[in-house]
């Protein structure tokens, strides 16, 4: 066995942590009294030549650790070859990271500025998620790609839809747009038997065929605006309506982000989840506190210089 009697403490710790990883792997794959894990490990590791390891660390036949080789561990992540390669390839960020002059140009001292830039520009560009479910957005003046493509008129009282115009839906008897379902109008869908006449608590063929769960109150498509959920939500195509929610439709580019407080058309593509927004906020806080510390250190050094 590998001996811990020689070698530095650092190297011994490397061996102990390494053996721990191996033992955990064998435990994960070996049940009591079975040699499954050991056999699997043997199959995978038999192709390595012994000399590769023994020559490296001077293990020799006794596996004595006495070599002077330098070892890394996940806690000493440096990745020099990545930096070397990046610098050769003139990667601007990683090259700047290794630049001993970084900071001299004021980058480090202007970290507060960077942070406020992230915060303010993120807000300006609508990275912060806004309130409103898709239905609410429609009701509050949002527009959809469907509208833009001429498939739907903006929701409004008395409006008509292209669906009506192409004969798929009869004009609402009163009220407008998709409200027809909630009102007393009838649709071709009803007429061809796809939908039962709208009524409080009514059900639709869509519900009957399992495409939509019955609304918990209200009827038909109002389910989205109420507390009901749809199969679309259940299938992961739409997030449940909630403050700050976004939809897969938005993410897939089928619906424009909300027009108020949100991301306008020019910034489409940076729709952030609330988790991402939280990540950026955490980063901003950490950087800001680092910047304050940096300023404190500078001030302290300055005052010491003055005192001297």
């Amino acid at each position, binding site marked *: *066995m*590998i001996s811990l009697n020689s070698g530095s403490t650092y190297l*011994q710790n490397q*061996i*102990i942590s*390494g*053996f721990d*990883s*191996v*033992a*955990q*792997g*064998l435990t*994960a*794959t070996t049940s*009591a009294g079975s*040699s499954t894990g*050991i056999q*699997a490990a043997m199959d*995978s*590791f038999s*192709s*390595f030549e012994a000399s590769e*390891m*023994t*020559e*490296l*660390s001077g293990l020799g036949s006794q*596996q004595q650790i006495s070599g002077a*080789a*330098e*070892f*890394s*561990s*996940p*806690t*000493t*992540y*440096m*990745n020099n*070859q*990545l930096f070397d*390669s*990046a610098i050769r390839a003139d990667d*601007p*960020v*990683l090259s*700047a990271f290794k630049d001993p002059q*970084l*900071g001299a140009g004021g980058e*480090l001292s202007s*970290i507060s500025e960077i942070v406020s*830039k*992230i915060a303010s*520009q993120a807000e300006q*560009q609508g990275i912060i998620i806004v309130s409103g479910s898709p239905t609410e957005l429609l009701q509050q003046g949002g527009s959809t790609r469907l509208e833009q493509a001429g498939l739907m008129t903006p929701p409004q009282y008395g409006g008509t839809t292209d669906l009506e115009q192409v004969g798929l839906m009869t004009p609402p008897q009163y009220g407008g747009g998709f409200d027809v379902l909630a009102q007393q109008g009838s649709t071709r869908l009803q007429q061809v038997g796809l939908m039962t006449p709208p009524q409080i608590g009514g059900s639709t063929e869509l519900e009957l065929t399992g495409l939509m769960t019955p609304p918990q109150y209200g009827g038909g498509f109002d389910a989205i605006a109420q507390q009901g959920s749809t199969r679309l939500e259940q299938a992961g195509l739409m997030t449940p309506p909630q403050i700050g929610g976004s939809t897969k439709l938005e993410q897939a580019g089928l619906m424009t982000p909300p027009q108020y407080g949100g991301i306008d058309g020019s910034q489409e593509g940076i729709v952030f989840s609330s988790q991402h927004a939280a990540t*950026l906020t*955490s*980063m901003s806080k*950490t950087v800001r506190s680092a910047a304050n510390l940096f300023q404190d250190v500078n001030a302290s050094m300055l005052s010491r210089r003055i005192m001297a």
Partner: protein
Amino acid sequence: MKDTKKKEMKLVERLGMNSRQEAALLQIGFRFYQQGRFGDAKNIFEGLALLDGNNAYVHGILGSLYQREGKDEAAVSSYSAAIQLFDKDIDSRSNRGEVFLKLGKFQEAAEDFATTIRLDPARKNPAANRSRLLVAITQDAIKLGKEKGFEAVQQERNRLRQSQGRR
């Protein structure tokens, strides 16, 4: 053939940050990491991964942070992202191999170790040397398990831990 694929603008560019400012953020994160302030380092690097998802170093160091926390799946995912961006990434590959080893995914571990060893013929890269050491230790453990049974491996693990505690 003309490449018509539109280059996606990174968020860091949309925010108007330049390369040196991004590098400064990277350096702060790395300082935290070196000082053992891993929570702060994670905040920075997770933010950086959002700002610039094409930075292999950011993913690699995030993998290392997750590995420390025992978040094995997240670690593998981050290391894999780093390797995808820079396939000669010895550090990420060696570390990912160790996570695979811990999970009992011996074939994947062996492949990662073999690649790192091949990428470092001069035997000077510390991460590749870690791979070599892990291979040696694994072979030792296999030998012990084969000769004396799986329990003997566990006993040896306990013995090593105790010897570490005595020092």
